[in-house]
């Protein structure tokens, strides 16, 4: 029950602003109006929008992380490779994926490919850096211990490095999901027929603020749900980790 308190507070504040007279009520639709819109849209295009957006995020992040994990292992393990490649990765990581959207549309059109490519880009570069920084920080003592117990290179990799890297994989996934959501909505705002971003963009064209609110709230809750799910998985997978809280 207690977890609902801050949400109730936000809704109350929202009502307060709506009825305060300080702003034009037409610019801030009331929560119940947005809720009505939500119910109405839920019977129309909303499920499809949600589905398209989540599906794109999943695909982009899955591909991005699938590439970032092995790349992270190579970069984390071989210092020489890392010194060589690090500036390159930082260069591409510093480019906001959103800035690349127009270019991607030129190359890949406005269909699915462009969006998945851009999300792959966003997920890969945000994920790979978390991965290899994490691997490079694994204390060499564990590798030494394993060697004195008779472990070969492959055994050290699979029995020591990989398990110790699981927390970093999960962090990479969380970071990538966050970046991917932000990027996806931006790319849908620019060019898409379906998806939460396009829902918002279409509504904006007709000044339908309540629909914009529906879209924004959906994005927030889906991102939140993904993060909660991931944290639950993480808690099971890395129960061994010593944490401050």
């Amino acid at each position, binding site marked *: 029950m207690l977890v609902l308190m801050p949400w109730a507070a936000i809704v109350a504040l929202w009502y307060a602003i709506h009825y305060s007279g300080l702003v034009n009520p037409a610019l801030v639709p009331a929560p119940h109006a947005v809720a009505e819109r939500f119910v109405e849209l839920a019977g129309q295009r909303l499920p499809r929008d949600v589905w398209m957006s989540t599906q794109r995020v999943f695909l982009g992040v899955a591909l991005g992380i699938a590439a970032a994990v092995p790349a992270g292992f190579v970069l984390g393990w071989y210092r020489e490779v890392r010194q060589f490649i690090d500036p390159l990765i930082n260069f591409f990581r510093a480019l906001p994926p959103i800035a690349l959207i127009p270019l991607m549309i030129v190359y890949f059109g406005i269909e699915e490919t462009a969006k998945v490519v851009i999300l792959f880009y966003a997920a890969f570069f945000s994920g790979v850096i978390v991965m290899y920084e994490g691997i490079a920080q694994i204390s060499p*003592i564990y590798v030494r211990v394993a060697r004195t*117990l*008779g472990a070969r290179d492959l055994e050290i990799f699979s*029995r020591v490095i990989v398990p*110790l890297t699981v927390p970093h994989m999960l962090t990479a996934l969380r970071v990538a999901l966050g970046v991917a959501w932000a990027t996806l909505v931006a790319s849908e705002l620019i060019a898409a027929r379906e998806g939460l971003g396009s829902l918002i963009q279409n509504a904006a064209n007709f000044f339908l603020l309540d629909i914009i609110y529906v879209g924004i709230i959906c994005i927030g809750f889906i991102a939140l749900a993904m993060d909660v799910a991931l944290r639950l998985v993480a808690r099971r997978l*890395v*129960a061994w980790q*010593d944490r401050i809280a």
Partner: protein
Amino acid sequence: MKPRISFEGVSVLFGGLKVVDDVSYAIGEREFVSVIGPSGCGKTTMMNIVAGFVKPSRGAVLLDGKPVAGPGPDRGVIFQEYGVFPCLTVKENIAFGLKLAANRAGEAEREEICARYMRLMGLADFADAWPKTLSGGMRQRLAIARAYAVKPEFLLMDEPFGALDAQTRSAMQDLLLAVLAAEGKTVMLITHSVEEAVYLSNRIVVMTARPTRIREIIEVPFGYPREESLHEKPEFGELRSHVRELVMKEYAAQSRLTQEEKT
């Protein structure tokens, strides 16, 4: 007696810094040799040569007459920082070596070995606990159990009891003696404690300040098994004073050296 581990004119340089200078001594079958010397003189470095992690710049360390080629499960190492795998439970840590191709044991044998060492080290109630929940002393016992499980012929221990309180430390020393009496291993122990060195060893190698050389090798005349009461014997006290005097001089020399380096 044929030496099992022998240092033959070993010198080590790290860049321009000479750390170990022409060290020669041998450890025989089932001997317990302690190495004592000031902090930063090069004890861990010497142990790392035997373990196979550091190559001497000159000279060689021979194992049964052959130069050390690299790390291997014949030499169990207890590191100064225990290196307990945080992502494995107590039991999985002990079983780690037994699942490797180098010394693969069957399921039943593995269970048996794990159970035995957990019992011996007082970890039986913590079989499924994560290392983060263990005390320092328990982690240390876990590191020892893990090293023992693969049945090494040699045991290389780097200040294994350094972080323990006096009571636990004394209990761990007696446990070590008991296990050695039962399993018979050739041991090299690095320590800062004169008391510990005299109580446990056949021989004590006292090292000088850096670059470290052998100051003196002292035979310890007491037989095994040894008991707590040995600490009270006058011969024990005499030997301890003698070793302590030697060691104190070298510790003083090393701190002068460290002071000079700072200025």
